[in-house]
């Protein structure tokens, strides 16, 4: 298999952009899993729901920017609602992991079918026209690198948030030792709620970017969830940089498979990577090293 320079640029560029969008879903999942111990199978739904809300609002004639803002606010509210209405009912229960996994699967079924009823099939968010440039002989819509840059910007923002603000530190503290956090005055139930809201917003933003670069469908959410679980497990649960590295790796594998092997093989390749990593290192790539 011979890869030309043009193809390589294309594969790597696309892989990194897709990878950084995936990172937003994975980081949201990882945040929620780290703080609440909830393996949120509905994580990707925050992306598809946000995307479709924006599609719907734009369809009603509302401008793109206010629609995006409304979509993101909706994501936050949806995240908080999921925590309050569903997840909080399981606190203190035996088998918390199992119960919340299946409950969030139930949320996925609901969300997927509500979207199907309301929007039907494939939709796209009309992105702004910001021009294009020529790279290695091909014209590239600037929206693509811009989307990647926004995703990276969000990740940096999250990093700063979790290192330098009290709320961010409190999230890490609750993830680390809930009782310790309680003793120094952290209202952990409030942190649980906010974590779900923030995790949903991060993933919601990925839905906005995804909806502009690719097409949204009612099943986009499940696909993104599958990607995100793969990434979090490969990168090591609770590791911020591990998650980002794994996102880029998965983005590149996906881009390479889609371009060189055929898009039918995309999921096969991703799950094969996950499967091999886990069989070799059952605690993830970074597991056991700490």
């Amino acid at each position: 298999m011979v890869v030309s320079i043009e193809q390589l640029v294309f594969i790597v560029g696309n892989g990194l952009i897709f990878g950084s969008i995936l990172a937003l879903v994975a980081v949201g999942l990882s945040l929620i899993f780290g703080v609440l111990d909830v393996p949120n199978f509905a994580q990707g739904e925050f992306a598809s729901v946000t995307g479709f809300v924006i599609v719907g609002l734009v369809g009603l004639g509302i401008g793109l920017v206010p629609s995006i803002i409304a979509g993101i606010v909706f994501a936050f509210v949806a995240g908080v609602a999921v925590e309050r209405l569903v997840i909080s009912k399981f606190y203190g229960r035996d088998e918390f992991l199992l119960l919340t996994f299946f409950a969030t699967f139930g949320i996925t079924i609901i969300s997927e079918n509500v979207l199907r009823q309301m929007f039907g099939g494939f939709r796209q968010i009309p992105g702004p026209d910001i021009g294009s440039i020529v790279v290695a002989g091909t014209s590239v819509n600037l929206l693509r690198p811009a989307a990647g840059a926004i995703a990276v910007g969000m990740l940096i923002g999250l990093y700063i948030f979790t290192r330098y603000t009290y709320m961010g530190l409190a999230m890490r503290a609750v993830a680390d030792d809930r009782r310790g956090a309680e003793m120094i005055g952290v209202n952990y139930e409030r942190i649980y709620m906010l974590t779900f809201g923030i995790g949903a917003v991060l993933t919601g933003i990925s839905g906005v970017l995804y909806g502009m670069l690719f097409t949204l469908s009612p099943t986009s959410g499940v696909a993104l969830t599958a990607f995100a679980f793969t990434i979090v497990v490969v990168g090591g649960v609770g590791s911020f940089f591990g998650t980002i590295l794994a996102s880029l790796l998965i983005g590149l594998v996906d881009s390479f498979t889609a371009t060189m092997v055929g898009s039918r093989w995309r999921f096969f390749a991703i799950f094969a990577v996950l499967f091999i990593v886990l069989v070799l290192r059952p605690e993830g790539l970074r597991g056991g090293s700490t």
Partner: protein
Amino acid sequence: MDSEKHTSERNALEANEISAGYGEAQVLRDLSFELQEGEILSIVGPNGAGKTTLMRVLMGLIGPTNGSVRLYGDQITDLPAHERLGHGLALVSEERNLFREMSVKENLVMGSYSERGKNRGERLERVFDLFPRLEERQDQHAGTLSGGEAQMLAIGRSLMTDIRILMLDEPSLGLAPKLVPELFDKIREINDDGISIVLVEQRAQEALQLADSGCLLENGAIVHRGAAAEMLDDEDVIEKYLGGA
């Protein structure tokens, strides 16, 4: 509430007939004591006497099945832990409950969470003065600290807000014996700054030597209360609880 507010000015912390337990197992039975403002009170007793459960009830981490807790005369029995801190009550637990994946500095900063960093610089300086080792290790992960350093950090973290009462649950646990006198000196220093202290210890003799008054806890009930010095002289107490030393 108002009518009860000024009944007892001198008591910093008061436990009235507390009963508590987990599920069907009752751990504490009708337990009462009071901590006077500015003093060190040592609660000593054998393993399994209910000391840790008592600390959790006082901090609001678990609810009592019966009885009440008062802080400077105010009813606080139903307040959650995060609100008790605002009233100046802090607990350093037996497990220390440090944030192991966070740096020493971040642990201390989190200590000032309930006041959102009010006087943070000043307080940080005070903690570093008290425990210079923490300053040296401020960028290290808390999970990598030695037992003694971890205890310093746990105490330091609790000093990051404006506390008036500090409860210490078995602070000497897991420490090298030669470090214990040093730790007790630090507790004395904290007390000298005007912070009342509840010290729960298995090292009964050393704890009582440090304390102003003492309580003996056995099978979830207080079996003896008095001035610490008197308890140290009481033959009966010595024989039964201080290993005849």
